[in-house]
């Protein structure tokens, strides 16, 4: 009870500071620069909410805060909880209503003019956002005081905050975009564009099945995604099995190798494939010279995209699957073997089914990645694009047709959501807690021979192919003009990254500006993404709150939204009050966090599903609060998932292009957007040199992450495998 009061006091204090001291409206110069402090007394634009009360729509704020204070003084926690929830909800509702209704120049909606003229207002600033957070806090603490979720204020606070963030950064932009689809240029309502696009045969045609022409873009994208998901999952599983279950040389190198493709800006692989297999590629020319066949443009289209996506996404499913393969309890396999199962039968009947949920996860992730992929189709798509590029061209191209973009986005969303649903229904019934609170020893069974050999071969070949492609990329940065003049040169590197010394370091290279911006933003976004993602995973797996399924569903949906759509929708949502962020670093960071978070969530969910729930419960009954339980018990056991989330979000922030290309500004330009510009200008040399440097930097940072997070300290120590009987030397 004392604790309930103390935390409410702190919250009320925060609310007072937000309302009485912090600038209510957004500052053009930025809040964190603190440049506003000097103008505080003279400039009414930096005044707090209490000084803005000449705007009548802010009057409910002091009233609601006053009521909250009265509740605190007059009622014990158990009785006031419900009222606090109502207060908080009312506050948030009113803030949203007034923010959306009153824009820069008065009413946003013609229907409201009847209420009389109003002054315009700026977007929400620190004060307004602080108040919003405090209202969310009222809801969380009120629910805790009512005893919801066993009265855990931390859990309730996290849930409230996450729901608010997801609503703001996932749903609000989407809604803004769809409203945009139904608006004419002058802002009035029209459904003409949507109706025109919804039945377009270019999207839905199935003529390739009947043999008379090409299929619609929807079906082609679907087909591609199925192929990519199947291929990458199988390859990822093969890599995971080799890395964990086989005694092969260069295992560490294998892991490093599989990380390579995700740290590569997507169009670079496309570029390398073009240099190799394109019409003028050296492999193509070699084959044509030797055999006399005419290979032509076979690479451009689904085949090329598929190969590039296989290179790009196999490591992602490898990262997912390695945890799964390691998580299968060895005693299960040992049990099976003692039940007279052969190694093959053990693998097929025990190991594989236990891995099935993880495999389904990997498949889902690859499927959606492929559907949303933008970089590879942009480079290799040729004449037939896929949905994501079609969306892009629907907006930026000559056609500028937001309605078409919205329709295509809905189709894309339909596919990815169906995949998500199918996986959920199949996965929902299976839960294998293979890391229990009980220690179990034992060693993983070796792979049956009929699996081991093919798997090893495939992995070896793919690894070789990958090395080759990367060698090509690195090499490309050092030749004058690829395909024409193969003289070795450092010219590209010096143009991009030259440094000179004039009273300190001067970054004279053309790449430095975007490079430093990218690093800064990626390093801020990565830990945020991992934290939000894993916190969400923990809430979803461990807390039984009403609407949990819906919450998870909403989160996963954000994963299913392709980057192009996110980019456009962010522009449409955050360009005007009440929330205005375009042109800032903030919009890039939020974009990365909410775009990459679902992968952290999925990884966290998969990892946490293998942690017995009684571990959390034990910690709670030992007196640890839920944040402490998270920190002391869950996080140490989730290190691989944390590492994966950190690495993934960092790397994605650096290599992402689809959403970013809409959100960069002169002040905050990102490396990928800059490189795309170089490619458009035909400056392949610098583009490749810049990409190579990015790859090296990412490897360094990932290595550091790996050291920081460390290896998971599990019950199963890596013990020297029981010595096999020395094999006879083969003749």
């Amino acid at each position, binding site marked *: 009870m004392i604790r309930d009061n103390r935390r409410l006091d702190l919250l009320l204090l925060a609310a007072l500071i937000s309302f009485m001291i912090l600038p209510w409206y957004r500052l053009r110069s930025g809040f964190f620069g603190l440049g506003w402090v000097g103008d505080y007394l003279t400039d009414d634009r930096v005044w707090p909410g209490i000084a803005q009360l000449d705007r009548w729509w802010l009057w409910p704020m002091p009233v609601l805060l006053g009521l909250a204070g009265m509740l605190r003084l007059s009622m014990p926690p158990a009785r006031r909880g419900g009222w606090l929830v109502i207060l908080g909800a009312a506050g948030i509702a009113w803030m949203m209503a007034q923010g959306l209704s009153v824009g820069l120049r008065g009413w946003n909606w013609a229907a409201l003019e009847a209420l009389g003229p109003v002054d315009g207002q700026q977007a929400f600033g620190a004060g307004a956002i602080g108040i919003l957070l405090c209202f969310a806090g009222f809801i969380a603490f009120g629910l805790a005081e009512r005893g919801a979720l066993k009265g855990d204020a931390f859990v309730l606070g996290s849930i409230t905050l996450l729901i608010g963030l997801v609503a703001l950064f996932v749903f609000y932009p989407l809604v803004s975009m769809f409203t945009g689809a139904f608006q004419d240029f002058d802002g009035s309502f029209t459904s003409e564009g949507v109706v025109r696009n919804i039945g377009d045969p270019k999207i839905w045609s199935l003529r390739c099945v009947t043999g008379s022409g090409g299929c619609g873009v929807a079906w082609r994208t679907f087909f591609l995604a199925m192929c990519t998901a199947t291929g990458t999952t199988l390859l990822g599983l093969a890599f995971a099995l080799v890395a964990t279950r086989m005694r092969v040389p260069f295992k560490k190198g294998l892991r490093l190798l599989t990380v390579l493709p995700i740290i590569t800006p997507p169009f670079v692989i496309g570029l390398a494939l073009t240099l190799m297999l394109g019409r003028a590629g050296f492999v193509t020319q070699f084959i044509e010279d030797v055999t006399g066949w005419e290979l032509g443009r076979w690479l451009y289209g689904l085949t090329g995209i598929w190969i590039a996506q296989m290179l790009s996404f196999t490591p992602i499913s490898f990262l997912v699957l390695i945890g799964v393969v390691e998580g299968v309890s060895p005693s299960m396999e040992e049990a099976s073997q003692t039940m007279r199962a052969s190694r093959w039968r053990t693998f097929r009947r025990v190991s594989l089914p236990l891995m099935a949920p993880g495999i389904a996860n990997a498949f889902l992730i690859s499927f959606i990645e492929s559907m949303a992929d933008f970089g590879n189709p942009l480079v290799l798509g040729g004449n037939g694009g896929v949905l994501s590029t079609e969306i892009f061209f629907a907006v930026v191209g000559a056609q500028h047709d937001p309605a078409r973009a919205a329709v295509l986005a809905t189709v894309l969303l339909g596919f990815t959501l169906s995949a998500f649903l199918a996986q959920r229904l199949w996965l929902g019934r299976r839960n294998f807690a293979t890391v229990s609170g009980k220690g179990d020893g034992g060693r993983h069974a070796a792979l049956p021979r009929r699996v081991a050999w093919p798997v090893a071969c495939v992995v070896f070949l793919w690894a070789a192919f990958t090395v080759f492609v990367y060698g090509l990329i690195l090499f490309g940065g050092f030749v004058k003009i690829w395909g024409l003049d193969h003289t070795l040169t450092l010219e590209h590197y010096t143009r991009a990254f030259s440094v000179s010394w004039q009273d300190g370091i001067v970054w004279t290279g053309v790449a430095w500006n975007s490079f430093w911006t990218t690093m800064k933003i990626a390093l801020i976004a990565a830990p945020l993404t991992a934290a939000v993602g894993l916190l969400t995973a923990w809430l979803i797996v461990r807390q039984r709150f009403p609407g949990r399924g819906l919450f998870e569903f909403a989160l996963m949906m954000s994963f299913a939204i392709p980057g192009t759509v996110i980019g456009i929708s962010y522009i449409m949502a955050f360009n005007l009050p009440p929330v205005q962020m375009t042109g800032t670093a903030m919009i890039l960071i939020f974009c990365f966090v909410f775009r990459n978070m679902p992968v952290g969530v999925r990884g966290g969910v998969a990892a946490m599903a293998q942690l017995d729930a*009684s571990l959390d419960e034990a910690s709670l009954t030992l007196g640890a609060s839920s944040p402490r339980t998270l920190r002391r018990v869950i996080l140490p056991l989730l290190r691989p998932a944390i590492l994966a989330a950190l690495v993934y979000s960092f790397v994605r922030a650096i290599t992402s292009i689809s959403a970013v290309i809409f959100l960069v500004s002169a002040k905050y330009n990102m490396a990928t957007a800059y490189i795309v510009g170089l490619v458009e200008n035909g400056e392949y040399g610098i583009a490749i040199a810049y990409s190579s440097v990015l790859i090296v930097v990412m490897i360094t940072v990932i290595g550091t992450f790996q050291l920081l997070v460390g290896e998971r300290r599990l019950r199963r120590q890596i013990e020297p495998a029981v010595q096999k009987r020395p094999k006879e030397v083969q003749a």
Partner: protein
Amino acid sequence: MTSPKRGAVAFKNVRKEFGSFIAIPDLSLQIAPGELVTLLGPSGCGKTTTLRMLAGLESPTQGRILIGGEDVTRLPANRRDVSMVFQSYALFPHMTVAQNVADGLESGGMKAGPARDVADKGLDLVGLDGMGARLPSELSGGQQQRVAVARALVLEPQVLLLDEPLSNLDARLRRRVRTEIRDLQQRLGFTAVYVTHDQEEALAVSDRIIVMQDGRIAQEGTPRALYEQPASDFIADFIGEANVVPCEVSHVADGVATVQVGGLTQTVPARNAAPGPAQLSVRANAITLQERDGPFAGKIVSSAYLGDHLEYEIDTDVGLLFAIDAEGDAPLRPGTPVSLGFRPRGLALIA
């Protein structure tokens, strides 16, 4: 501060629903300080749910829960003065044994050094001194179990909760560990709530047993009361595998009932019985067998030799009876006709 009620537990009209399933319709119970109470029942009877509500891991749908006189119904698990030994032990696999034991103390704000000392004492208490630096996976099952107990005990909780703590141990170890737990509880005088489905375990450790069935209390009392005065055929069967046979109470006088069963006439404590048909609980070891004709005849169906005693299944007029013969030395063959008798001490009318 030690309140006079420290360690007392009360459930007041507690109801628990999981969605549409009613796990516990309406449960009220009292536990006195220093008492070891066992919740006993078949799986799905609500005993673990009751324990988890006491721990704060589930919230009751209705009703109140009090620990030490304080209403804790809405208090989260980490703010309740209880600790729990889990069926799976739930030892943190990434921490050493000593870290496991010290973790709760550090959660409570103790510095790492002193916490370590207390943890070492706790490990001494359960006979694991010197094992602190090991990982849980390097201990045997029995040792892991004792770490779990030590981890719960060092917090000096008002109430120690044990959720089937012995179910992962082998039979011999089970007997020893249950004695150790009982000893510790007697020595340190804490209140304990013990959940099990094993009636022998319950009889051995408890001050009082609460038998649960379908979320309700079927009967509660001392081990002896439950064993000797079962309130229903469920209890008679569940506690000590008694035979429940139909009988006829012919008359009742001075607290003694005269009962007709299977052609025999017996006197048993009346327990509020009235003349008329009734049920009689007959312990397996209260049946005597003789290889001859008699008023209560039966035929051996199967027999088993268990070293110190023989077990029989006997077909009789009142049904199949299970009997234990501690005196015979050679088992009777199946098919042998026998005459049955009763020892008075193993008989009880089911009230």
